[in-house]
């Protein structure tokens, strides 16, 4: 009956749409200067500045509840309800602790304003009122025994209360985990883990990025997008082109590369194991010794040593097969497994330890036989010892060569990983978490993580950060009960929101509209093509992706060299300009300092260089009348 209830509970829980479930994570954008700090609304586009920091706040109360439910604890379980209540109370703790660690950490109390005391009193009283309204809790806290304990507590009373609530919550957690038989020391299929990871994605693929407190990735190169950007130099253009072609070729050749590697390994694998010949030598020495020693009565105790160790010698065959299959498993998983950090080093080391253990057992048996036996040959020598020693020597040779083989395999992995390192960035991840993304059980997850965008390496406006959280039942996919459920998924768009400066050259169509007052203007047509160099300020939006991707305004100054008098010598003009549509279109007003005449202009950032403009002598190439 209970099982049926549990099943029904699980089915109902699964049927809940993700959107209807509690919000486990809150994203907050914070500028590194601290000027901007704002929660990213859940129902709108998530757009952040490309140089900012994304804080990810975890709602431990909602998450723990979800994790226990995923573990199969019924929602109405009294302990789960209790834990939920305690977690709700502990939601107050962050603000209280923050004030304790900041406002009240200074010994000089004159620096603390009355509003801070009032704020703290309000925060604390909200918590205490909730405690007072909980009959069960207040019975535990508001007692003479607890009063006495609070005096022994090394810290202020508010901290004593929080400490008490945390202890209570931990007791409930442990009780729930104890029921599930999950003590955290083993990979029980009932343990549910929380994992949080992030990927940066763009046209050339994606890669995992570091979330502080939640994974073991090292921070990438520190790289701030300049707010005063000069046009790209030739070297930079060459570098960009090189990177692009490299990325493209990697994408195209990724499969081919994998295929070639596998083929190479297949060729090498047959020659890779010198231990195979030493294995044959060992088998041969073993069989020869056994047949020799089994004949005579005197040498039978020595033969028994061989028989006793037959099982471990048999492992030699299995070790060889196992090492080959392990190696081939890695090859099959190439390049995903290697890129995800699975090098199978532990498996290989285990193999060596197994072989060493078996050898040591045999060597110990031979040594014991040599010191304790009563079987002596007529010449006084120990019966069968030379044969046993020969086998031992062969065994040692086998173990040595096996160690060498394993070392070679590991070296190959390391070399391949080294070769793959430059490819890793452009390798399109399939959004699977690697082993470097940590697993957290209930009660021990950090309250917050953050992504320092300046330290995620190469990025550009328009890239997206995918933040993803999952619950996993069991730590290994090999676990038959392994199950993964995505509980959070959100794309955050990177944009250049903070104002920045940009310089660019373009062509404008200048119109010296006050021709009546400027007789020197000799244009027959209304507009004249003129090169312009603009310096303008631009900014992005946290609300509109459309604005960032298309409208993208800029305001600044434009410096033009028109030739309104058609004398072959360009004049100098300067004025205000507004750009839009990603700087493709610009309009503005300027003053021709050579002819003392105003002009308006409209420009197009056309894909050919300013240097290739027709000169004024051919300026009949104009638009309009």
């Amino acid at each position, binding site marked *: 009956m209970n099982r049926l209830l549990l099943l029904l509970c699980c089915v109902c829980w699964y049927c809940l749409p993700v959107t209807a479930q509690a919000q486990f994570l809150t994203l907050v954008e914070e500028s590194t200067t601290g000027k901007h700090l704002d929660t990213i609304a859940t129902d709108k586009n998530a757009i952040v500045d490309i140089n900012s920091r994304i804080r990810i706040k975890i709602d431990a109360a909602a998450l723990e509840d979800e994790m226990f439910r995923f573990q199969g604890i019924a929602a109405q379980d009294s302990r789960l309800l209790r834990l939920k209540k305690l977690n709700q109370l502990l939601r107050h703790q962050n603000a209280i602790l923050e004030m304790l660690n900041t406002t009240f950490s200074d010994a000089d*109390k004159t620096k603390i*304003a009355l509003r801070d005391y009032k704020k703290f009193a309000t925060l604390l009283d909200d918590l205490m009122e909730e405690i007072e309204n909980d009959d069960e809790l207040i019975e535990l806290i508001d007692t003479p025994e607890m009063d006495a304990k609070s005096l022994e507590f090394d810290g202020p009373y508010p901290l004593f209360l929080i400490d008490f609530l945390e202890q209570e919550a931990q007791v409930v957690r442990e009780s729930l985990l104890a029921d599930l038989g999950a003590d955290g020391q083993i990979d029980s299929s009932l343990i549910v883990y929380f994992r949080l990871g992030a990927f940066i994605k763009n046209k050339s693929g994606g890669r995992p990025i570091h979330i502080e407190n939640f994974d073991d990735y090292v921070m990438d190169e520190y790289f701030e997008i300049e707010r005063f950007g000069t046009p790209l130099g030739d070297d930079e253009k060459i570098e960009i082109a090189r990177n692009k072609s490299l990325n493209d070729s990697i994408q195209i050749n990724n499969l081919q590369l994998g295929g070639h590697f596998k083929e190479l390994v297949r060729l090498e694998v047959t020659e890779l194991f010198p231990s195979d010949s030493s294995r044959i030598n060992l088998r041969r020495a073993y069989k020869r010794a056994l047949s020799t020693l089994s004949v005579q009565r005197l040498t039978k105790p020595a033969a028994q040593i061989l028989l006793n160790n037959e099982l471990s010698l048999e492992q030699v065959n299995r070790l060889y097969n196992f090492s080959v299959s392990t190696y081939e498993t890695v090859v099959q998983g190439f390049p995903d497994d290697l890129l995800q950090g699975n090098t199978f080093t532990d498996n290989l080391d285990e193999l060596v330890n197994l072989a060493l253990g078996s050898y040591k057992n045999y060597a110990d048996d031979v040594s014991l036989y040599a010191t304790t036996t009563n079987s002596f040959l007529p010449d006084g020598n120990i019966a069968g010892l030379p044969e046993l020693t020969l086998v031992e020597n062969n065994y040692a040779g086998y173990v040595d060569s096996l160690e060498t083989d394993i070392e070679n395999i590991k070296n190959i992995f390391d070399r391949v990983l080294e070769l793959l390192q430059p490819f890793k960035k452009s390798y399109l991840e399939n959004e699977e978490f690697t082993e470097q993304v940590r697993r957290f059980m209930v009660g021990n997850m950090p309250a917050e993580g953050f992504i320092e965008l300046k330290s995620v390496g190469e990025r550009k406006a328009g890239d997206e950060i995918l933040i993803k959280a999952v619950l996993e039942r069991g730590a290994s996919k090999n676990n038959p009960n392994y199950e993964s459920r995505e509980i959070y998924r959100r794309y955050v768009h990177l944009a250049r929101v903070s104002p920045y400066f940009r310089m660019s050259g373009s062509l404008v169509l200048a119109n010296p509209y006050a021709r009546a007052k400027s007789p020197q203007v000799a244009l027959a047509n209304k507009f004249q093509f003129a090169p312009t160099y603009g310096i303008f300020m631009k900014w992005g939006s946290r609300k509109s992706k459309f604005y960032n991707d298309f409208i993208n305004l800029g305001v600044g100054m434009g410096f033009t060299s028109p030739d309104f008098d058609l004398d072959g010598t360009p004049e100098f003009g300067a004025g205000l300009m507004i750009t839009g549509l990603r700087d493709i279109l610009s309009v503005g007003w300027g003053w021709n300092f050579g002819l003392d005449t105003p002009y308006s202009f409209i420009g197009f950032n056309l894909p050919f260089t300013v240097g290739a403009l027709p000169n004024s002598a051919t300026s009949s190439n104009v638009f309009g009348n």
Partner: protein
Amino acid sequence: MAKALTKNHFENMPTTFPIPIPSLTRVHTLNGMETAIEDFDAFLEEHITLLLLGRFEDSTILLEGANKLCTQETAHPKQRILWVNKLEELFTLKTKIEDALKEGFPEKEITFENVRAIAMMPKVAYVIYVDPSLSPDPKDKRKKISIFQMQRAFNAAIKALPPTPTEEEI
């Protein structure tokens, strides 16, 4: 207007009232019946006071706890305990305290004899009872003297403090 305080104000504050236990630096008592009303008014004017009335069980632990609430890092520097434990002083202050209770909680009928502690700033902000079950307000059912309740009392008093004009001084 609240009086601006200097850093050393509290260290150098004149001890108008005796301190019953030397280690309890924030727990004060009155100087006798003759000057009780004047001293009481002056004390309330100067401090955020938790007024303790009469003698009670576990007073050592509770007074120690009350003192800690006034010395912990989150305490307002003006927090003090005034322990009126002599019968004659209680009689002298009875009317004054009853008036203050009426002013603070006009909707409640609070019996002086059932009051164990009052948070004052100098208006009444929070009442702790000898026997909370005698209070007609069901919200008061837990308001019996304890460190928990004394912390709540101080919270209420601080929350009720009028803002200072500059908000820079304490």
